[in-house]
């Protein structure tokens, strides 16, 4: 019997596959395509204290094997989420992970308290959004600030706290360690890499925001390396993401040490990508006489 379930920071996930924040909205749209209960969990669109409009369009550009986005955290605010969206999501048998972005540690704490009280399963603290000026990425590029936000959220949250790390750093391990030391229950990585495109004919940036966050298969090797480095350095569980688009990519993440694997941009090509990974993994484990993720998680075979 294959068992894809995972105990992640004390929360049981029916399988190890989740969908990445910002690529799945609040689940309503994709719920028309498949039963959301087939997912291990859903990371909802990044929330802020107040509703946010986001950045002006154009907000997306294609790149070889990837995309740039500059949505800029458009969302209805944490209160509207709890009131309007959470009840809908609770209609499904899957874990709900709230993704939050603040301008100050106090804002993070405020949202975390509300979400914890509302019974969210896990709080994902986004200290790595490259598309907003205040807050966001600044917290994710400095171990001290990342630790400060972690502590602020941990103080108020009664549910596990997961810090989402930025890849736009020299040493992701030092940030991961700082978050772990500050009490983080889990880590997720990676958010997008800061990138840019220019229309070669006109000299105009394709994105109105000039720069945007790079996601999709192009970043997979970078994400995998960082997941491996972080998993080798911390003892809290890790949700691995960044360019995962098929079963093979998800398995690579598991070998590297990830406990949960998240797919985002892959959904734009195939709305059923995450569900296919669940099915593909089941087949893989069955064909290889394995029980499930636990048989490969973190068991990268090094050369001697």
């Amino acid at each position: 019997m294959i068992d894809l379930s995972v105990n992640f920071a004390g929360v049981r996930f029916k399988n190890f596959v989740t969908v990445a924040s910002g690529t799945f909205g609040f689940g309503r749209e994709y719920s028309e395509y498949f039963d959301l209960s087939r997912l291990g969990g859903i990371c909802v669109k990044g929330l802020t204290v107040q509703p946010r409009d986001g950045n002006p369009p154009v907000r997306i550009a294609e790149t070889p094997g990837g995309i740039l986005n500059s949505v800029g955290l458009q969302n209805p605010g944490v209160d509207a989420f709890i009131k309007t969206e959470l009840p809908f999501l609770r209609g499904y048998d899957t874990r709900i992970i709230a993704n939050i972005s603040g301008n100050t540690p106090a804002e993070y704490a405020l949202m975390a308290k509300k979400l914890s009280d509302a019974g969210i399963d896990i709080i994902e603290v986004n200290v790595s959004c490259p598309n907003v000026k205040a807050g966001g990425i600044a917290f994710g590029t400095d171990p001290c600030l990342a630790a400060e936000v972690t502590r602020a959220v941990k103080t108020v949250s009664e549910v596990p706290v997961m810090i989402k790390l930025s890849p736009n750093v020299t040493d992701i391990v030092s940030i991961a360690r700082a978050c772990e030391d500050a009490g983080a229950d889990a880590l997720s990585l990676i958010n997008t890499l800061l990138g840019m495109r220019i229309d070669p004919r006109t000299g105009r940036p394709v994105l109105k925001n000039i720069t945007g966050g790079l996601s999709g298969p192009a970043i997979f090797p970078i994400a995998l390396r960082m997941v491996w480095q972080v998993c080798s350095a911390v003892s809290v569980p890790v949700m691995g993401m960044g360019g995962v688009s098929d079963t093979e990519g998800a398995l690579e993440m598991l070998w590297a040490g990830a406990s949960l694997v998240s797919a985002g941009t892959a959904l734009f090509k195939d709305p059923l990508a995450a569900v296919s990974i669940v099915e593909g993994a089941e087949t893989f484990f069955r064909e290889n006489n394995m029980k499930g993720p636990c048989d490969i998680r973190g068991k990268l075979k090094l050369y001697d």
Partner: protein
Amino acid sequence: MKSGSVFCEVEECSGLAENVFSIWLKADREILAAAQPGRFLHILCPEGSLLRRPISICQTQGDMLRLVFEVKGEGTRWLSRRRRGDSLDILGPLGSGFDLSGGPLLLAGGGIGAAPLLFCAQMKRCDAVLGFASGQKAVLLSEFASACDGAEFSSDDGSLGRRAYVTELLEERLRSGGYKGVLACGPEPMLRIAAGLCRDYSVPLQVSLEQRMGCGVGACLVCSCRIVKDNREGYARVCRDGPVFRASEVVWDD
């Protein structure tokens, strides 16, 4: 439950005009039932590209569905090279289409924007004014001529019909009066002028907008356009809240 992306077989792919192509696809019952004027298919055009391309449905016939599109870049170039028997990976129909209730209605199309309007004419007898850059660029003339009561054509250089912008034809029709609604598709400057005209003549206008898309289903929020609704200005999603919007709600870029 909607199905995810599905494969549709290409029945025919042919050139219509300079850089403009027509594809007839065999579609299943589910797709045909969901096809409506103004809705679009989100099409995978591989060769290293990740994002699907949105193309409006131009018309349906029996179990077939037609797309008419202009080659703009890699994706549409790939699409133009499909051959009978090839299959296309499509998602959709997506988006909310034109409201065809009431009448009489006038269709106003600029260039390739004529494509989705033909589907309107197929569903309901309408008048039409269509403008093209030139005769070489003009498409679907005979289809409109037979589907519409009074179809009028113009071109920027006079090589087809009158030498005029389509917005001039539109204004003449509005001046002569009698329309209960206008449905427009075309380049943004044309739509903006049409919006001004229809406001002046107090005729409700629906416009089909374009924006670069990610998911196509409403989840990723990249395809935004600026809308005023209930006195609040904010972003709407072209892929789901549109692509068809009431022109009176659209905040036009300057």
